[in-house]
């Protein structure tokens, strides 16, 4: 075995894979959140639909998206491998175990939280990602007046796989800027009108908050990052940004659509 394979098959190395994939997924969350903030706009989903097209067609983003799928798979598979080894390390458990006396609840339940998140990711991707790629989405046409950008004419176009493609052009005769795009926005709006989807999404975001409360700072520790000067910064970001703000804003999206759109 080479030095690299040996390193990655050790208990420290397997955790290194968990850390690198996990932190990459954290980074993705920021981008995903910022993009999805466009759902809060009242523009019949124009910005969101244009953004969806960009994210699925811009080559550098596509490369990153494959990295993302790989990260999810590796994170889950290695979690399983590590958990199996860890349970083999203590086959006979304790009759009385007071974990709460020495560790946080999240840190002891990363596997359960991660499983909830994996189920959520499968549901989430089949709802939107698979739908967008292969689902036969309806199209939508936005005609924005060049003289008055406030004036937008929206036409819904039913699904027509052979003829409709994404297009963006200026119609000089009509004096409008035309955008034709797959209407992912309507799929999101329809789904978030179903109460139990909203509940599922909110539960998943709570689970993500707890998962990242331990996961974010733990990822840095696994890399060996630990210093009095910047450990508090990592802990602060892990708590406020990754386990409170990001999950809260994500959870706000289905709630907002359900109650106000």
């Amino acid at each position: 075995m080479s030095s690299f394979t040996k390193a990655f098959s050790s208990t420290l190395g397997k955790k290194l894979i968990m850390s690198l994939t996990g932190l990459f997924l954290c980074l993705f969350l920021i981008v995903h959140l910022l993009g999805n903030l466009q759902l809060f706009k009242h523009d019949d989903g124009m910005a969101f639909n244009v953004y969806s097209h960009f994210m699925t067609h811009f080559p550098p983003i596509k490369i990153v998206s494959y990295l993302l799928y790989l990260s999810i798979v590796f994170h889950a598979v290695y979690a399983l491998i590590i958990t199996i080894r860890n349970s083999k390390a203590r086959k006979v458990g304790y009759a009385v175990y007071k974990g709460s006396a020495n560790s946080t609840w999240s840190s002891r339940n990363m596997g359960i939280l991660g499983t909830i998140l994996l189920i959520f990711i499968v549901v989430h991707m089949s709802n939107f990602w698979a739908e967008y790629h292969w689902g036969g989405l309806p199209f939508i046409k936005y005609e924005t007046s060049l003289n008055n950008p406030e004036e937008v004419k929206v036409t819904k176009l039913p699904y027509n796989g052979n003829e409709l493609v994404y297009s963006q052009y200026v119609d000089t005769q009509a004096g409008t800027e035309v955008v034709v795009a797959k209407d992912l926005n309507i799929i999101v709006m329809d789904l978030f009108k179903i109460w139990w989807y909203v509940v599922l999404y909110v539960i998943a975001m709570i689970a993500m908050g707890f998962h990242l409360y331990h996961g974010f700072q733990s990822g840095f520790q696994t890399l060996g990052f630990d210093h009095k000067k910047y450990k508090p910064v990592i802990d602060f970001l892990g708590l406020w940004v990754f386990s409170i703000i990001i999950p809260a804003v994500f959870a706000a999206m289905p709630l907002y659509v359900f109650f106000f759109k």
Partner: protein
Amino acid sequence: MSGNMNLTLKVWRQKNAADKGGFVTYKADDVSPDMSFLEMLDIVNERLVKKTEDPIHFDHDCREGICGACSLYINGRPHGPKQAITTCQLHMRSFSDGETITIEPWRAEAFPVIKDLAVDRTAFDRIQEAGGFISVNTGGVPDANEIPIPKVVADEAFNSATCIQCGACVAACKNASAALFVSAKISQLALLPQGQTERYRRVQAMVAQMDAEGFGSCTNTGACEVECPKGISLTNINRMRRDYFNAKFFKEEEIH
């Protein structure tokens, strides 16, 4: 005597490594709150011997918190409910009259039970033998303070060196990981000039032995740090990771 306590003990009894084992309940009556936990067990054992029953086996030696021999997982926590002490330093005043106390051995596949509450902790010795040393040639005694070492570095190395190898970190960890012990033993040498020559060989050898012994992965729960009777900090584990990844990914292994 007034103020003495009557306790119920649920003690793990296991004849040998092959035996399945199980809990046996004992009455520990008239226990003074000023006794140490091990003295209380001594009294229970004396009563068992008088009744010609097999006394409860448990590890102990110095009984002043410096040798690392005593263990015992008491009421769900290694070395009992108090922090920064070993079981021998735990006093019965930490319990209340009428309480039921559950006493279990350290649980880890790498620490097989020898008998009752005594476990085999030689896995730690084998990890130490794999690299927890420095090689020094024989010769004249070097002058004191010949090699300058900054105070903070010396203090940090001594903090790591206070590990008494009791195994509470493994017992406390939900993954039965030995990361805190191994990293303390690596750190105490890696921090000092004398440990530099073998620094990267050492970390690789000791981690490899730790894995071979069947300890789990560290998932940074921090339970070990809280339960360590000597207050060894998690910083050691992170230092071990830095040295290990540094050795594996960035250091020369052969001349080329």
